Protein backbone atom coordinates (compact mmCIF):
# COMPACT_ATOMS: atom_id res chain seq x y z
CA UNK A 1 0.00 0.00 0.00
CA UNK A 2 2.77 2.38 0.99
CA UNK A 3 4.64 1.59 -2.20
CA UNK A 4 1.58 2.31 -4.29
CA UNK A 5 1.08 5.68 -2.54
CA UNK A 6 4.73 6.57 -3.06
CA UNK A 7 4.47 5.72 -6.74
CA UNK A 8 1.33 7.87 -7.12
CA UNK A 9 3.09 10.74 -5.33
CA UNK A 10 6.11 10.45 -7.63
CA UNK A 11 3.89 10.45 -10.75
CA UNK A 12 2.02 13.49 -9.42
CA UNK A 13 5.32 15.29 -8.74
CA UNK A 14 6.54 14.47 -12.22
CA UNK A 15 3.32 15.88 -13.69
CA UNK A 16 3.70 19.11 -11.73
CA UNK A 17 7.32 19.72 -12.77
CA UNK A 18 7.99 22.24 -15.60
CA UNK A 19 8.22 20.76 -19.05
CA UNK A 20 11.40 21.52 -20.97
CA UNK A 21 11.97 21.97 -24.67
CA UNK A 22 15.18 22.08 -26.58
CA UNK A 23 16.46 25.60 -27.14
CA UNK A 24 19.73 26.26 -28.99
CA UNK A 25 20.96 29.79 -28.38
CA UNK A 26 23.44 30.69 -31.07
CA UNK A 27 23.81 32.93 -34.11
CA UNK A 28 25.98 33.53 -37.10
CA UNK A 29 28.35 36.49 -36.84
CA UNK A 30 26.64 39.85 -37.23
CA UNK A 31 28.26 43.05 -38.47
CA UNK A 32 26.41 45.68 -36.47
CA UNK A 33 26.47 49.44 -36.86
CA UNK A 34 27.27 51.38 -33.68
CA UNK A 35 24.74 54.15 -33.16
CA UNK A 36 25.56 57.61 -31.80
CA UNK A 37 24.59 56.52 -28.27
CA UNK A 38 27.09 53.63 -28.50
CA UNK A 39 24.33 51.07 -28.83
CA UNK A 40 23.95 48.27 -31.36
CA UNK A 41 20.76 46.54 -32.43
CA UNK A 42 21.15 42.79 -32.42
CA UNK A 43 19.67 41.91 -35.77
CA UNK A 44 18.87 43.39 -39.11
CA UNK A 45 16.23 45.93 -40.15
CA UNK A 46 12.98 45.27 -38.31
CA UNK A 47 14.12 41.81 -37.23
CA UNK A 48 16.17 42.17 -34.07
CA UNK A 49 16.19 40.67 -30.62
CA UNK A 50 17.70 43.28 -28.37
CA UNK A 51 20.05 46.20 -27.97
CA UNK A 52 23.51 46.23 -26.44
CA UNK A 53 24.71 49.50 -24.91
CA UNK A 54 28.44 49.43 -25.48
CA UNK A 55 29.58 52.68 -23.84
CA UNK A 56 31.74 50.99 -21.12
CA UNK A 57 33.40 48.72 -23.69
CA UNK A 58 34.11 51.55 -26.13
CA UNK A 59 35.46 53.67 -23.27
CA UNK A 60 37.79 50.85 -22.25
CA UNK A 61 38.97 50.24 -25.80
CA UNK A 62 39.33 53.99 -26.45
CA UNK A 63 39.02 53.28 -30.13
CA UNK A 64 36.39 54.92 -32.38
CA UNK A 65 34.51 52.26 -34.31
CA UNK A 66 31.55 52.41 -36.66
CA UNK A 67 30.80 48.68 -36.68
CA UNK A 68 31.35 45.72 -34.39
CA UNK A 69 31.15 41.99 -34.95
CA UNK A 70 28.92 40.04 -32.59
CA UNK A 71 28.16 36.34 -32.29
CA UNK A 72 26.12 34.39 -29.76
CA UNK A 73 27.01 31.01 -28.31
CA UNK A 74 25.01 29.25 -25.58
CA UNK A 75 23.44 32.50 -24.44
CA UNK A 76 26.69 34.49 -24.26
CA UNK A 77 27.59 37.19 -26.74
CA UNK A 78 31.10 37.70 -28.05
CA UNK A 79 31.96 41.09 -29.47
CA UNK A 80 34.98 42.56 -31.17
CA UNK A 81 35.98 45.15 -33.76
CA UNK A 82 39.05 45.76 -35.86
CA UNK A 83 41.74 47.52 -33.82
CA UNK A 84 40.21 46.53 -30.49
CA UNK A 85 42.69 45.13 -27.98
CA UNK A 86 40.28 42.58 -26.50
CA UNK A 87 37.54 40.22 -27.44
CA UNK A 88 34.55 40.94 -25.19
CA UNK A 89 32.27 38.38 -23.67
CA UNK A 90 28.81 39.59 -22.59
CA UNK A 91 26.76 37.34 -20.38
CA UNK A 92 23.14 38.38 -19.87
CA UNK A 93 21.94 38.31 -16.26
CA UNK A 94 18.97 36.15 -15.31
CA UNK A 95 16.53 39.10 -15.22
CA UNK A 96 17.47 39.90 -18.83
CA UNK A 97 18.05 43.62 -18.24
CA UNK A 98 21.85 43.69 -17.95
CA UNK A 99 24.90 41.84 -19.17
CA UNK A 100 28.14 41.06 -17.36
CA UNK A 101 31.10 42.02 -19.53
CA UNK A 102 34.52 40.41 -19.54
CA UNK A 103 37.50 41.42 -21.64
CA UNK A 104 39.43 38.50 -23.11
CA UNK A 105 42.93 39.53 -24.04
CA UNK A 106 44.01 37.11 -26.72
CA UNK A 107 47.39 38.79 -27.20
CA UNK A 108 48.77 38.85 -23.67
CA UNK A 109 52.31 39.01 -24.91
CA UNK A 110 51.80 42.48 -26.27
CA UNK A 111 49.80 45.12 -24.41
CA UNK A 112 49.73 47.52 -27.33
CA UNK A 113 48.85 44.90 -29.90
CA UNK A 114 45.65 45.52 -31.79
CA UNK A 115 43.39 42.91 -33.33
CA UNK A 116 43.05 43.06 -37.09
CA UNK A 117 41.36 40.90 -39.76
CA UNK A 118 39.06 39.54 -37.12
CA UNK A 119 36.35 36.98 -37.67
CA UNK A 120 33.96 35.17 -35.35
CA UNK A 121 32.30 31.86 -36.11
CA UNK A 122 30.95 28.84 -34.32
CA UNK A 123 32.91 25.60 -34.50
CA UNK A 124 32.39 22.12 -33.14
CA UNK A 125 29.48 19.79 -32.87
CA UNK A 126 25.81 20.31 -32.23
CA UNK A 127 26.30 19.33 -28.59
CA UNK A 128 29.53 21.18 -27.99
CA UNK A 129 30.23 24.24 -30.10
CA UNK A 130 32.97 26.80 -29.49
CA UNK A 131 33.54 30.25 -30.82
CA UNK A 132 36.39 30.32 -33.27
CA UNK A 133 38.04 33.71 -33.13
CA UNK A 134 40.44 34.59 -35.90
CA UNK A 135 42.69 37.61 -35.69
CA UNK A 136 46.09 38.74 -37.01
CA UNK A 137 46.35 35.48 -38.98
CA UNK A 138 45.86 33.32 -35.89
CA UNK A 139 42.95 31.58 -34.26
CA UNK A 140 41.76 30.52 -30.83
CA UNK A 141 38.66 28.73 -29.56
CA UNK A 142 36.39 29.80 -26.72
CA UNK A 143 34.43 26.98 -25.17
CA UNK A 144 30.86 26.88 -23.89
CA UNK A 145 31.92 28.37 -20.54
CA UNK A 146 34.13 31.10 -21.96
CA UNK A 147 37.46 29.32 -21.57
CA UNK A 148 40.24 29.79 -24.16
CA UNK A 149 41.75 26.80 -25.94
CA UNK A 150 43.90 25.92 -28.87
CA UNK A 151 41.21 23.53 -30.04
CA UNK A 152 37.51 23.29 -29.52
CA UNK A 153 37.12 21.01 -26.54
Amino acid at each position, binding site marked *: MKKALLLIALIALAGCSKQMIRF*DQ*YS*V*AMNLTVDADSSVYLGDGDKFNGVLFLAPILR*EENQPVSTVKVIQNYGRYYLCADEFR*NLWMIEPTSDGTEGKI*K*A*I*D*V*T*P*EDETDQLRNI*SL*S*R*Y*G*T*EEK*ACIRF*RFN*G*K*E*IFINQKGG*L*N*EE*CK
Partner: protein
Amino acid sequence: MKSANSWMMLFLLLLAPLLQAQDVQDLYEQAKEALRQADYQTCLDKIAAAKAEISQDPQLDPNGVFMKRLLPEVERNGQNMAAIMLALEELYDSSQSGVTFADLGLNQEAITQYHAQARDASDDLQRRRDEILASRELAPEYRTALLRAPVLTRIEKLASTGIMEKLTGKFSQMVGLLTDSLSAVDNRFRMAEARLAKLQKSAAASKQEIEKIKGEMAKLNTERLSYINTISEMLAGEASPEMEPIRVALSENQVDDVFRGVIESEIRRVKGITTIDSVGYKELLKDYDRIRNYNRIFAKNNIAPDQAALLASYDAAIKAVKVEVPKTTNWTLIYIIIGVLLLLLLWALYKLFGGSKKKSPPPPEYKSYQP
Protein backbone atom coordinates in the same frame (compact mmCIF):
# COMPACT_ATOMS: atom_id res chain seq x y z
CA MET B 1 42.46 43.47 -18.31
CA LYS B 2 44.73 40.52 -18.34
CA SER B 3 43.69 36.94 -17.84
CA ALA B 4 45.53 34.92 -15.32
CA ASN B 5 46.75 32.35 -17.80
CA SER B 6 48.57 34.85 -20.05
CA TRP B 7 51.59 32.66 -20.50
CA MET B 8 49.48 29.73 -21.48
CA MET B 9 47.76 31.88 -24.09
CA LEU B 10 51.12 32.90 -25.50
CA PHE B 11 52.03 29.26 -25.78
CA LEU B 12 48.74 28.48 -27.54
CA LEU B 13 49.19 31.25 -30.02
CA LEU B 14 52.70 30.19 -30.88
CA LEU B 15 51.30 26.80 -31.71
CA ALA B 16 48.38 28.14 -33.73
CA PRO B 17 48.97 27.57 -37.45
CA LEU B 18 48.83 30.38 -39.96
CA LEU B 19 45.35 30.39 -41.35
CA GLN B 20 44.72 29.66 -44.99
CA ALA B 21 41.11 28.58 -45.42
CA GLN B 22 38.36 31.16 -45.66
CA ASP B 23 35.59 31.39 -43.12
CA VAL B 24 32.32 29.81 -44.18
CA GLN B 25 30.57 32.96 -43.07
CA ASP B 26 32.91 35.12 -45.17
CA LEU B 27 32.17 32.95 -48.20
CA TYR B 28 28.47 33.22 -47.46
CA GLU B 29 28.65 37.03 -47.19
CA GLN B 30 30.71 37.24 -50.38
CA ALA B 31 28.16 35.07 -52.20
CA LYS B 32 25.35 37.39 -51.14
CA GLU B 33 27.33 40.47 -52.12
CA ALA B 34 28.09 38.99 -55.55
CA LEU B 35 24.40 38.32 -56.10
CA ARG B 36 23.61 41.90 -55.09
CA GLN B 37 25.82 42.86 -58.04
CA ALA B 38 23.96 40.37 -60.30
CA ASP B 39 27.18 38.30 -60.46
CA TYR B 40 25.48 34.94 -60.08
CA GLN B 41 28.55 32.95 -61.18
CA THR B 42 30.75 34.30 -58.38
CA CYS B 43 27.85 33.74 -55.99
CA LEU B 44 27.49 30.09 -56.98
CA ASP B 45 31.29 29.60 -56.83
CA LYS B 46 31.39 31.00 -53.29
CA ILE B 47 28.49 28.81 -52.22
CA ALA B 48 30.23 25.75 -53.69
CA ALA B 49 33.45 26.70 -51.86
CA ALA B 50 31.57 27.12 -48.56
CA LYS B 51 29.92 23.72 -49.01
CA ALA B 52 33.27 22.14 -49.78
CA GLU B 53 34.77 23.67 -46.61
CA ILE B 54 31.94 22.26 -44.52
CA SER B 55 32.18 18.86 -46.19
CA GLN B 56 35.90 18.76 -45.37
CA ASP B 57 35.34 19.84 -41.77
CA PRO B 58 31.72 19.47 -40.56
CA GLN B 59 32.68 21.21 -37.30
CA LEU B 60 32.63 24.49 -39.22
CA ASP B 61 28.83 24.27 -39.18
CA PRO B 62 27.90 22.84 -35.77
CA ASN B 63 24.12 23.11 -36.08
CA GLY B 64 23.99 22.78 -39.86
CA VAL B 65 22.60 26.28 -40.12
CA PHE B 66 24.75 27.09 -43.14
CA MET B 67 24.30 23.77 -44.89
CA LYS B 68 20.57 23.41 -44.25
CA ARG B 69 19.33 26.96 -44.26
CA LEU B 70 21.59 29.85 -45.27
CA LEU B 71 23.61 28.46 -48.19
CA PRO B 72 20.66 26.75 -49.96
CA GLU B 73 18.64 29.98 -49.81
CA VAL B 74 21.35 32.05 -51.50
CA GLU B 75 22.14 29.20 -53.88
CA ARG B 76 18.48 29.00 -54.98
CA ASN B 77 18.47 32.73 -55.65
CA GLY B 78 21.75 32.41 -57.54
CA GLN B 79 20.42 29.56 -59.66
CA ASN B 80 17.20 31.44 -60.39
CA MET B 81 19.13 34.52 -61.39
CA ALA B 82 21.36 32.41 -63.63
CA ALA B 83 18.30 30.89 -65.35
CA ILE B 84 16.70 34.33 -65.83
CA MET B 85 19.92 35.85 -67.20
CA LEU B 86 20.43 32.96 -69.56
CA ALA B 87 16.87 33.24 -70.87
CA LEU B 88 17.28 37.01 -71.28
CA GLU B 89 20.52 36.53 -73.22
CA GLU B 90 18.76 34.02 -75.48
CA LEU B 91 15.86 36.42 -75.97
CA TYR B 92 18.24 39.22 -76.89
CA ASP B 93 20.17 37.08 -79.35
CA SER B 94 17.05 35.68 -80.99
CA SER B 95 15.44 39.12 -81.23
CA GLN B 96 18.61 40.66 -82.57
CA SER B 97 18.78 38.19 -85.43
CA GLY B 98 15.13 37.17 -85.64
CA VAL B 99 13.41 40.50 -86.28
CA THR B 100 13.34 40.97 -90.03
CA PHE B 101 11.10 42.98 -92.31
CA ALA B 102 9.78 41.68 -95.63
CA ASP B 103 10.25 43.98 -98.60
CA LEU B 104 7.04 45.98 -98.97
CA GLY B 105 8.20 48.16 -101.83
CA LEU B 106 8.94 51.88 -102.05
CA ASN B 107 5.74 53.55 -101.13
CA GLN B 108 4.15 55.62 -98.43
CA GLU B 109 1.93 52.79 -97.20
CA ALA B 110 4.99 50.56 -96.73
CA ILE B 111 6.41 52.97 -94.15
CA THR B 112 3.22 52.81 -92.09
CA GLN B 113 3.30 49.02 -92.28
CA TYR B 114 6.99 48.84 -91.39
CA HIS B 115 6.36 51.12 -88.47
CA ALA B 116 3.45 48.97 -87.23
CA GLN B 117 5.57 45.82 -87.59
CA ALA B 118 8.44 47.41 -85.69
CA ARG B 119 6.11 48.53 -82.91
CA ASP B 120 4.63 45.02 -82.66
CA ALA B 121 8.10 43.48 -82.55
CA SER B 122 9.13 45.92 -79.83
CA ASP B 123 5.99 45.23 -77.77
CA ASP B 124 6.51 41.49 -78.18
CA LEU B 125 10.13 41.77 -77.03
CA GLN B 126 9.10 43.70 -73.92
CA ARG B 127 6.30 41.26 -73.14
CA ARG B 128 8.63 38.26 -73.40
CA ARG B 129 11.25 40.04 -71.27
CA ASP B 130 8.65 40.65 -68.54
CA GLU B 131 7.52 37.01 -68.71
CA ILE B 132 11.10 35.82 -68.18
CA LEU B 133 11.61 38.22 -65.27
CA ALA B 134 8.48 36.94 -63.58
CA SER B 135 9.20 33.28 -64.34
CA ARG B 136 11.35 32.63 -61.24
CA GLU B 137 11.40 33.85 -57.69
CA LEU B 138 14.12 36.16 -56.44
CA ALA B 139 14.51 37.95 -53.12
CA PRO B 140 13.79 41.68 -53.57
CA GLU B 141 17.42 42.76 -53.05
CA TYR B 142 18.59 40.41 -55.83
CA ARG B 143 15.72 41.37 -58.13
CA THR B 144 16.79 45.00 -57.83
CA ALA B 145 20.30 43.95 -58.85
CA LEU B 146 18.94 41.95 -61.77
CA LEU B 147 17.09 44.99 -63.13
CA ARG B 148 20.46 46.74 -63.45
CA ALA B 149 22.02 43.86 -65.41
CA PRO B 150 23.61 44.82 -68.76
CA VAL B 151 21.49 42.31 -70.70
CA LEU B 152 18.34 44.15 -69.64
CA THR B 153 19.81 47.47 -70.77
CA ARG B 154 20.61 45.88 -74.15
CA ILE B 155 17.07 44.52 -74.48
CA GLU B 156 15.64 47.92 -73.54
CA LYS B 157 17.76 49.60 -76.20
CA LEU B 158 16.79 47.01 -78.79
CA ALA B 159 13.10 47.55 -77.99
CA SER B 160 13.29 51.34 -78.01
CA THR B 161 15.62 52.03 -80.94
CA GLY B 162 17.28 48.85 -82.17
CA ILE B 163 14.27 47.45 -83.99
CA MET B 164 13.56 50.76 -85.70
CA GLU B 165 17.22 50.96 -86.66
CA LYS B 166 16.79 47.77 -88.64
CA LEU B 167 14.46 49.77 -90.88
CA THR B 168 17.05 52.47 -91.51
CA GLY B 169 18.20 50.86 -94.74
CA LYS B 170 14.66 50.56 -96.07
CA PHE B 171 13.73 54.06 -94.96
CA SER B 172 16.88 55.58 -96.49
CA GLN B 173 15.73 54.42 -99.92
CA MET B 174 12.37 56.07 -99.37
CA VAL B 175 13.47 59.42 -98.03
CA GLY B 176 14.06 60.91 -101.50
CA LEU B 177 10.74 59.59 -102.81
CA LEU B 178 8.87 60.95 -99.80
CA THR B 179 10.42 64.39 -99.73
CA ASP B 180 9.98 64.81 -103.53
CA SER B 181 6.30 63.88 -103.22
CA LEU B 182 5.88 66.18 -100.23
CA SER B 183 7.47 69.11 -102.09
CA ALA B 184 5.26 68.52 -105.14
CA VAL B 185 2.07 68.42 -103.05
CA ASP B 186 3.17 71.44 -101.06
CA ASN B 187 3.80 73.44 -104.30
CA ARG B 188 0.37 72.53 -105.61
CA PHE B 189 -1.19 73.57 -102.30
CA ARG B 190 0.59 76.95 -102.34
CA MET B 191 -0.46 77.56 -105.93
CA ALA B 192 -4.07 76.76 -105.08
CA GLU B 193 -3.85 79.05 -102.07
CA ALA B 194 -2.51 81.91 -104.23
CA ARG B 195 -5.24 81.29 -106.80
CA LEU B 196 -7.89 81.45 -104.09
CA ALA B 197 -6.50 84.70 -102.68
CA LYS B 198 -6.56 86.22 -106.17
CA LEU B 199 -10.12 85.03 -106.79
CA GLN B 200 -11.39 86.38 -103.48
CA LYS B 201 -10.05 89.83 -104.38
CA SER B 202 -11.75 89.79 -107.76
CA ALA B 203 -15.37 90.91 -107.89
CA ALA B 204 -16.16 88.56 -110.76
CA ALA B 205 -15.32 85.38 -108.83
CA SER B 206 -18.14 82.91 -108.56
CA LYS B 207 -18.91 81.28 -105.24
CA GLN B 208 -18.86 77.90 -106.93
CA GLU B 209 -15.30 78.43 -108.21
CA ILE B 210 -14.11 79.53 -104.74
CA GLU B 211 -15.63 76.44 -103.13
CA LYS B 212 -13.97 74.22 -105.75
CA ILE B 213 -10.51 75.65 -104.96
CA LYS B 214 -11.17 75.32 -101.25
CA GLY B 215 -12.08 71.65 -101.73
CA GLU B 216 -8.92 71.10 -103.78
CA MET B 217 -6.85 72.76 -101.06
CA ALA B 218 -8.39 70.59 -98.35
CA LYS B 219 -7.53 67.48 -100.37
CA LEU B 220 -3.93 68.66 -100.94
CA ASN B 221 -3.57 69.55 -97.27
CA THR B 222 -4.69 66.06 -96.26
CA GLU B 223 -2.14 64.57 -98.65
CA ARG B 224 0.58 66.89 -97.35
CA LEU B 225 -0.18 65.93 -93.74
CA SER B 226 -0.14 62.28 -94.73
CA TYR B 227 3.47 62.63 -95.99
CA ILE B 228 4.45 64.51 -92.87
CA ASN B 229 2.89 61.76 -90.78
CA THR B 230 4.87 59.14 -92.72
CA ILE B 231 8.10 61.04 -92.14
CA SER B 232 7.34 61.33 -88.43
CA GLU B 233 6.71 57.55 -88.31
CA MET B 234 10.16 57.00 -89.82
CA LEU B 235 11.62 59.01 -87.00
CA ALA B 236 9.52 57.54 -84.21
CA GLY B 237 11.28 56.12 -81.17
CA GLU B 238 14.49 57.29 -79.60
CA ALA B 239 16.85 59.39 -81.73
CA SER B 240 19.74 57.04 -82.51
CA PRO B 241 22.99 57.59 -84.45
CA GLU B 242 21.92 54.95 -86.99
CA MET B 243 19.08 57.20 -88.12
CA GLU B 244 21.49 60.06 -88.85
CA PRO B 245 21.55 59.57 -92.67
CA ILE B 246 17.75 59.81 -92.75
CA ARG B 247 17.78 62.93 -90.61
CA VAL B 248 20.42 64.55 -92.85
CA ALA B 249 18.43 63.70 -95.99
CA LEU B 250 15.25 65.15 -94.48
CA SER B 251 17.06 68.31 -93.37
CA GLU B 252 18.55 68.78 -96.82
CA ASN B 253 15.14 68.48 -98.43
CA GLN B 254 13.73 71.42 -96.47
CA VAL B 255 11.05 69.49 -94.67
CA ASP B 256 11.15 72.32 -92.13
CA ASP B 257 9.89 74.84 -94.75
CA VAL B 258 6.97 72.62 -95.64
CA PHE B 259 6.17 71.94 -92.00
CA ARG B 260 6.19 75.64 -91.13
CA GLY B 261 3.94 76.27 -94.15
CA VAL B 262 1.55 73.57 -92.93
CA ILE B 263 1.21 75.21 -89.51
CA GLU B 264 0.75 78.68 -91.05
CA SER B 265 -1.96 77.47 -93.43
CA GLU B 266 -3.68 75.67 -90.55
CA ILE B 267 -3.67 78.91 -88.56
CA ARG B 268 -5.20 80.76 -91.52
CA ARG B 269 -7.81 78.04 -91.95
CA VAL B 270 -8.79 78.14 -88.27
CA LYS B 271 -8.91 81.93 -88.24
CA GLY B 272 -11.38 81.72 -91.13
CA ILE B 273 -13.80 79.75 -88.95
CA THR B 274 -16.06 81.98 -86.87
CA THR B 275 -18.32 79.41 -85.25
CA ILE B 276 -18.21 75.64 -85.14
CA ASP B 277 -20.16 72.85 -83.48
CA SER B 278 -18.61 70.78 -80.68
CA VAL B 279 -17.78 67.86 -83.01
CA GLY B 280 -15.93 70.17 -85.39
CA TYR B 281 -14.12 71.81 -82.48
CA LYS B 282 -12.91 68.41 -81.26
CA GLU B 283 -11.54 67.79 -84.77
CA LEU B 284 -9.64 71.08 -84.61
CA LEU B 285 -8.09 70.06 -81.29
CA LYS B 286 -7.16 66.66 -82.70
CA ASP B 287 -5.41 68.28 -85.68
CA TYR B 288 -3.56 70.59 -83.31
CA ASP B 289 -2.36 67.68 -81.14
CA ARG B 290 -1.17 65.81 -84.21
CA ILE B 291 0.83 68.78 -85.51
CA ARG B 292 2.26 69.44 -82.05
CA ASN B 293 3.42 65.82 -81.98
CA TYR B 294 5.11 66.19 -85.38
CA ASN B 295 6.83 69.30 -84.08
CA ARG B 296 8.16 67.34 -81.09
CA ILE B 297 9.51 64.56 -83.31
CA PHE B 298 11.04 66.92 -85.90
CA ALA B 299 12.64 69.13 -83.26
CA LYS B 300 14.07 66.11 -81.42
CA ASN B 301 15.60 64.81 -84.65
CA ASN B 302 16.77 68.27 -85.78
CA ILE B 303 14.62 68.05 -88.91
CA ALA B 304 12.99 71.38 -88.17
CA PRO B 305 13.45 74.03 -85.47
CA ASP B 306 10.98 73.97 -82.62
CA GLN B 307 7.87 75.80 -83.85
CA ALA B 308 6.63 76.61 -80.35
CA ALA B 309 5.77 80.24 -81.22
CA LEU B 310 3.73 79.23 -84.27
CA LEU B 311 2.01 76.51 -82.28
CA ALA B 312 1.07 79.08 -79.62
CA SER B 313 -0.61 81.19 -82.35
CA TYR B 314 -2.30 78.05 -83.66
CA ASP B 315 -3.58 77.27 -80.16
CA ALA B 316 -4.80 80.85 -79.67
CA ALA B 317 -6.63 80.74 -83.03
CA ILE B 318 -8.43 77.55 -81.97
CA LYS B 319 -9.39 79.07 -78.63
CA ALA B 320 -10.82 82.10 -80.43
CA VAL B 321 -13.28 79.95 -82.40
CA LYS B 322 -16.77 80.23 -81.00
CA VAL B 323 -18.42 76.88 -80.30
CA GLU B 324 -22.12 76.75 -81.07
CA VAL B 325 -24.13 75.35 -78.22
CA PRO B 326 -27.22 73.59 -79.60
CA LYS B 327 -30.51 74.59 -77.99
CA THR B 328 -31.43 71.77 -75.75
CA THR B 329 -35.04 70.81 -74.90
CA ASN B 330 -36.01 71.75 -71.39
CA TRP B 331 -37.49 68.43 -70.37
CA THR B 332 -37.98 69.46 -66.75
CA LEU B 333 -40.34 72.26 -67.73
CA ILE B 334 -42.21 69.93 -70.07
CA TYR B 335 -42.66 67.37 -67.28
CA ILE B 336 -43.94 70.06 -64.89
CA ILE B 337 -46.47 71.32 -67.47
CA ILE B 338 -47.65 67.75 -68.21
CA GLY B 339 -48.01 67.12 -64.47
CA VAL B 340 -50.04 70.30 -63.93
CA LEU B 341 -52.30 69.48 -66.92
CA LEU B 342 -52.91 65.97 -65.56
CA LEU B 343 -53.87 67.38 -62.17
CA LEU B 344 -56.26 69.84 -63.81
CA LEU B 345 -57.81 67.02 -65.84
CA LEU B 346 -58.30 64.88 -62.72
CA TRP B 347 -59.83 67.81 -60.88
CA ALA B 348 -62.23 68.47 -63.79
CA LEU B 349 -63.27 64.81 -63.91
CA TYR B 350 -63.88 64.81 -60.17
CA LYS B 351 -66.04 67.90 -60.44
CA LEU B 352 -67.95 66.49 -63.34
CA PHE B 353 -68.85 63.13 -61.77
CA GLY B 354 -68.20 63.17 -58.01
CA GLY B 355 -69.40 66.76 -57.37
CA SER B 356 -72.75 66.43 -59.32
CA LYS B 357 -73.70 63.31 -57.30
CA LYS B 358 -73.52 65.20 -54.00
CA LYS B 359 -75.69 68.03 -55.21
CA SER B 360 -78.49 65.82 -56.67
CA PRO B 361 -81.66 65.90 -54.47
CA PRO B 362 -82.71 62.70 -52.63
CA PRO B 363 -85.38 60.56 -54.31
CA PRO B 364 -88.99 61.48 -53.34
CA GLU B 365 -89.74 58.26 -51.42
CA TYR B 366 -87.13 59.18 -48.81
CA LYS B 367 -88.53 62.60 -48.07
CA SER B 368 -89.55 63.05 -44.43
CA TYR B 369 -93.22 63.19 -43.75
CA GLN B 370 -94.58 66.62 -42.68
CA PRO B 371 -98.06 66.50 -41.19
